[in-house]
């Protein structure tokens, strides 16, 4: 789990990469060409980002003729969602202990 969280963080920390991933989530399967059309970055750059996303398990590619279609793999995000819920309960728990301590402390 820690390793996969770490990789997801690094992969999605880049706003361009995150935006490409978001688009695949919202709009479904796309080719590199379709993703580049609205990207504001070059096709090789988009391809490189897709390669990193694929390595992290966040996208899957499907070859059809000369085209490659990419789709989002939402299940790969589970560790990221886990991180936010883990850290939220961690701090809530620590605040409980802090409040106990404050009651016991001298003025």
């Amino acid at each position, binding site marked *: 789990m820690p390793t996969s969280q770490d990789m997801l963080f690094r992969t999605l920390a880049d706003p361009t990469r995150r*935006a490409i991933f978001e688009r695949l989530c919202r709009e479904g399967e796309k080719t590199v060409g379709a993703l580049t059309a609205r990207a*504001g970055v070059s096709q090789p750059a988009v391809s490189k980002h897709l390669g990193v996303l694929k390595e992290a398990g966040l996208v899957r590619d499907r070859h059809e003729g000369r085209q490659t279609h990419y789709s989002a793999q*939402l299940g790969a995000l589970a560790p990221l*969602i886990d991180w*936010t819920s883990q850290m939220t309960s961690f701090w809530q728990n620590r*605040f409980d202990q*802090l409040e106990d301590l404050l009651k016991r402390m001298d*003025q």
Partner: protein
Amino acid sequence: MSEGETLSVIVEREMPFPPDRVWRALTQPHLIEEWLMKNDFVPVEGHRFTLRAEPQPNWTGVIDCEVVTVEPNKVLSYKWGALGVDSVVTLTLTPTPAGTHLRVEHAGFRPDRPQNYQGARYGWRKFLASLEQVLARTD
């Protein structure tokens, strides 16, 4: 801090004690140990320290930290490095009639590049919320 740049967790609570008392609990090592973890904290900006949790099978339990901001009775923040992920913890104290409003923001990471892609319009929180909805639908 722009919401679109950072993934963060925020927990807030009203504590029925004055800010200076809360501040002591946040900054004195023997008190920090009682509510957070074993530590060698010193409230000096730039000071490096460690927080030590119980070791786990795949983790030493050591968190490498560095003090970023010390504003007595107001703001304390430190870098928090664990498991290869660098994050920042910011504790903010605000006096209230009943005591102190304490807020912790734990920012998962902050990308170092500007937003350079038109599609990147969702902040992290919205992004995760919308993904959770998508995940719920696909079950």
